[in-house]
């Protein structure tokens, strides 16, 4: 029953019980609304540096298994739940969530009013916060000063991106994935379609990428502000028109920047599995899995040659783009799901089709998908 506090930059203090690592940690508090999929959510590199608040009150019910990781290392800075299930029940469970966080050195807090916290974050937007060390009494002024003075890191992508290229072989299309913080789900989907995948570090040059003879290039998801990712925009600019491009999440934002559009931080992040997104081409609305705190500004698209293909039904956020000039399209949400609904997995087929068509045409720059 060790005490722990969550102190937020606006001065809110939540007292709860510690689990996971005993150490303290600072990060940006955001809430995630999925009722299942905590393992995927906490292992999503896009959550790098975040203190994730789960809105569903019982977390850890089915434990941790070997399959549902979205990355091998956990990049979040903390986890906040109403109640941690200490003894999970599921045939695949190999360990408890609490044990995993302890192992990975990530602090957690439970038994706080997570709905109150969620409503606070909804009204004020993401807030910086600190999970104090387990059992430690705190000097509130000092902690508050620390939190308020904390600068969100700008090197998140380099933290989570792979340091060396690696293959994930298949017999089909050669896809080079630029890893800005890739979720395993994307690789799973590409491999399911038999793609021959090579994952490269975020700072790999366009030349090196093209030297891998890709049929297409996938710009992966990743954490943080797209404007912070050094060099990415230039690399993408060089790749435009060379090979079909598919962007997901941060990859979508970087692509938009490369085409001259602008991005901005959202007041409320989208993290969860129930975001309706309208595909403006088929007119069908899919429920999508999302995890983003930045968005592409629709106003900035004029003159970029980009066309909006997907929109969030509820807040009109730009959720998908395609280029009128190049063989390229991107989505803000996660078609690979994991966690969340798999309604949009057809986008991987679109990417394959785009690559096939491109090859057939000898790789022209025509708008065809």
């Amino acid at each position: 029953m060790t005490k722990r506090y969550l102190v937020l930059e606006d001065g809110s203090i939540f007292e709860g019980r510690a689990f996971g690592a005993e150490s303290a940690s600072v990060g940006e508090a955001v809430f995630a609304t999925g009722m299942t999929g905590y393992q995927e959510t906490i292992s999503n590199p896009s959550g790098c540096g975040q203190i994730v608040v789960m809105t569903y009150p019982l977390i850890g019910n089915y434990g941790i298994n070997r399959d549902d990781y979205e990355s091998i290392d956990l990049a979040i800075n903390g986890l906040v739940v109403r109640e941690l299930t200490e003894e999970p029940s599921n045939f695949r469970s190999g360990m408890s969530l609490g044990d995993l966080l302890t192992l990975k050195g990530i602090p957690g807090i439970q038994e706080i009013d997570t709905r109150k916290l969620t409503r606070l974050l909804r009204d004020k937007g993401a807030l910086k916060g600190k999970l104090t060390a387990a059992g430690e009494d705190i000097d509130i002024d000092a902690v508050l000063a620390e939190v308020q003075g904390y600068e969100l890191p700008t090197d998140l992508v380099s933290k989570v991106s792979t340091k060396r290229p690696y293959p994930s072989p298949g017999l089909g299309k050669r896809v080079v994935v630029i890893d800005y913080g890739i979720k395993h789900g994307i690789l799973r989907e590409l491999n399911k379609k038999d793609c021959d995948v090579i994952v490269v570090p975020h700072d790999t040059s366009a030349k090196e990428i093209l030297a891998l003879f890709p049929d297409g290039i996938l710009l992966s998801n990743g954490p943080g502000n797209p404007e912070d990712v050094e060099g990415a925009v230039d690399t993408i600019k060089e790749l435009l028109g060379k090979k079909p491009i598919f962007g997901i999440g941060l990859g979508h934002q970087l692509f938009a920047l490369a085409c001259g559009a602008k991005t901005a931080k959202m007041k409320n992040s989208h993290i969860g599995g129930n975001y309706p997104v309208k595909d403006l081409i088929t007119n069908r609305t899919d429920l999508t899995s999302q995890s983003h705190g930045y968005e592409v500004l629709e106003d900035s698209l004029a003159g970029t040659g980009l066309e909006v293909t997907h929109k969030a039904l509820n807040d009109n956020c730009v959720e998908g783009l395609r280029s009128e000039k190049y063989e390229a399209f991107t989505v803000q949400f996660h078609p690979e799901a994991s966690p969340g609904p798999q309604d949009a997995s057809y986008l991987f087929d679109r990417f394959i089709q785009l690559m096939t068509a491109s090859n057939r045409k000898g790789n022209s720059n025509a708008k065809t998908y």
Partner: protein
Amino acid sequence: MPKRTDIKSILVIGSGPIVIGQAAEFDYAGTQACLSLKEEGYRVILINSNPATIMTDTEIADKVYIEPITLEFVSRIIRKERPDALLPTLGGQTGLNMAIELQESGILDELEIEILGTKLDAIHKAEDRDLFRNLMNEMGEPVPDSEIIHNIDEAYAFVRAIGYPVIVRPAFTLGGTGGGICHNDEDLEEIVASGLKYSPVTQCLLEKSIAGFKEIEYEVMRDSADNAIVVCNMENVDAVGIHTGDSIVTAPCQTLTDRENQMLRNVSLRIIRELKIEGGCNVQLALDPHSFDYYIIEVNPRVSRSSALASKATGYPIAKIAAKIAVGLTLDEMMNPVTGNTYACFEPTLDYVVTKIPRWPFDKFESAKRNLGTQMKATGEVMAMGRTFEESIQKAVRSLETGQFDLSLPGGAEMTDGWIEKRIRKAGDERLFFIGEALRRGVTIETIHEWSAIDLFFLRKFENIVRYEEVLKDNPFDYEVAYKAKRLGFADVTLAKHWNTTEREVYNWRKEQELIPVYKKVDTCAGEYESDTPYFYGTYEDENESVKTGKKSVVVLGSGPIRIGQGVEFDYATVHCVWAIQEAGYEAIIVNNNPETVSTDFSISDKLYFEPLTIEDVMHIIDLEQPEGVIVQFGGQTAINLADELEARGVKILGTSLEDIDRAENRDKFESALHEIGVPQPLGKTALSVSEAVVIATEIGYPVLVRPSYVLGGRAMEIVYHEQELLQYMENAVKASPEHPVLIDRYLTGTEIEVDAICDGETVLIPGIMEHIERAGVHSGDSIAVYPPQNLSQSMIETIADYTKRLALGLKIRGLMNIQFVISEGQVYVIEVNPRSSRTVPFLSKITNIPMANVATQAILGKSIAEQGYVDGLADAPAGVYVKVPVFSFAKLRRVDITLGPEMKSTGEVMGKDSTLEKALYKGLVAAGMEVKEYGSVLMTVSDKDKEEIIDIAKRFVEIGYRILATEGTAQALESANIEVKTVGKIGTEGTTLIDVIQKGQAQLVINTLTKGKQPASDGFRIRRESVENGVPAFTSIDTANAMLSVIESMTFQTDAMPKPQVIE
């Protein structure tokens, strides 16, 4: 896509009477749907035979027909109204089956009436076992090995190939009527026979049992543009093998990983897309707890009990949205009515745990088999929400009103280990409490898992609850311990039990400690978006979201779960009360825990608290809201029972005061009040011991009516004819004591009369008097009521009106009251007064056009009856005759005696109306599901006291061409009156016995008044059960038989031979 403009009028078919498997959820769905269609500007024509519903209020549809849902009557209405379209998927199985019948009859094609929403071929594909299985095979979706069978031989062939256990599922039946699990040949013979009987197409599915799998449900919606969403998923705490309607269910799923969840979500969406369902659909799946293997169990291509639960669990109004989808609107263009600012094409996410527990009728049917299986037995359900699973389930437990507040059983400590194991291994209604008891004794969760197949996750939660009892015991009045206990959902009653104090003490202590709950909003989105919907549940955390408004408010207590004796009619009155409060300018706040009803639709009241109806939970709300007062008279006995404690805690009871309620309900006070008022009652006294009872009974003379005081629906009430029976009753049925007095009354055989009245202290408005077909002794809820009375003289009516007025004024009624009179030898006696809304309020309101609950509420709030434009006394009767016919669910309840008596047994009711009594009765009987045949055979076995009366009845049956079959004693009586009769053997005799006659369908009617009693061994019991099992109408009251006879007579042309000239010698 915009809504359709090529159709103007839409016919909606309701679900008819409440029966097990089809209850108030269809009133909720139907009401929502009708209002939703009206909102879009369509003319809505509604047919439903159930008068007790909000749905059949004239404001809900443009034209409301309370007529039998049969091909004959629905066709007639269709021809008259000429709707452009028909919406069949909102009236449960009844509505669907009717639509199919209409389609097959050709009338829809003939009149070019379009079926909206899900098309009939999709319905067929989902409902017909064979077609469904084929479809699943085509889709590559797994279904358990199964075979359609049409006879017992085919059943044996399947079992020889697959092995036991197998599940029998009759095609096209409600709540699995007639089905079950078979473990051996004997089970197979019995269940297959009954399944084939109940299936209208004589078809059953035999299926390999996958008992032990997790049972998971998805509530899915799809629109015409192929947008499809999952509104909610739910996990049954009980593994596959128990009907989901009889399972404890939790939402969302608790033990599924995202991968499993998405796999099953994808399957559900594929199915709804494949079936091209336009509207709502329920997919039930079985998931192997040890792998990703799953099976599709069932698909319901319509709104259902589960969709009502999902709507209340998430806030997402499925039926409302389904109705709009049916007229062409799509999910992506409709708003989510809960948030008001996001779209309906959205999957709700919860930040609380929902638990549903079924409410079973076994407290009334002691002899019934309490085992649970594939045939549903519950009459209703409760739902509770909490931020922990423990809180959620403990709140649900105390919502049941079974006197239980935690996971313990009365007398549990004395039970043997063997008995407890048995009751956990074989699922029954009390399994949860047996598990509690086992855990208390140290049985491990692994062992209980082995016995029950319940997931360890849930068992661990139960264990947390039981373990915490020890902590409670050791730490009385400790804040930290109490806080944790409240977060685990412990009731003050339980805290008091462990702390050796009273609930009231605990409550007061908590208030001093400021250990009180907060209220959280149900908003479909876990707080992600703002929501204005005032739908709340209580929990113990930091932030309270329910803010008291500046407006004066009134709290209305609902009636809790639907059970025998307290049905949807109380919800009807509750809703009308809420509307009247709003009209009077107050904020109406409702507290209720029944997910099936209209009253718990958040759009009905200004504020909805989905909470248990216990004093603790209600007081928390009152403390917060500080209302002007509380109205208890519309929530049935549930709400009335809280009045005492509420007033003791300083809460103002609006309407009839507590003192006056008590005067009507307390035997002795009532008796002295009657003396003063000058209204006679049958002789009777209160006994506090067995010997006292004998003395009293001898004094007033047998037969006597005995019952415990303060009862609901005539529970444990009996008519006894001799001292021996009395002794037996006193020793077995009740334990008389000064705390539990037993009432003994002279039993008067005579016409029973029922009156509802409204009083404001000066004026007594009597909307109507009803006469019962069955003589006194049959519970009023089980009697056929006739309005206006057909056999009463003007002076008798005046006497009744006078007595009613005297009772209303004398008992100081403010609001509604219900009185039962008996007329014996020309004298009117009062037998019961209920100082509250009654079962007949909706029936009478609809007939007389006097909105009784509304008038009563306004009167309670200070607007006199005169100001409302009504005059004192008996209101003028409209033209026509109206009957209310009870409907029973005996087919679902094995081993229940169907004999009508003072204990109520019916689950629902229908109305029949026409120009004559016989026509009205015909409609009522038909609507109640009886087949009225113009000719055939009637089987009679009556007790000695009825033999005289049966002679006249038999003569009349003969007159219209019925053949009379009778057992020996009855046959002799009839023969001696020169009636031709075929004698059939009693049970156990050689040759053709009456059981054979019933089983072979050789009798179309059975009249049986033999050996009343609860002993399943008795002949009378077996005969009556055989009739039920074989779907033959059985009458246990000579009066009901007589009514049926007069209906048949009125249908038949007379065929008297010409009179022969008398030969004058």
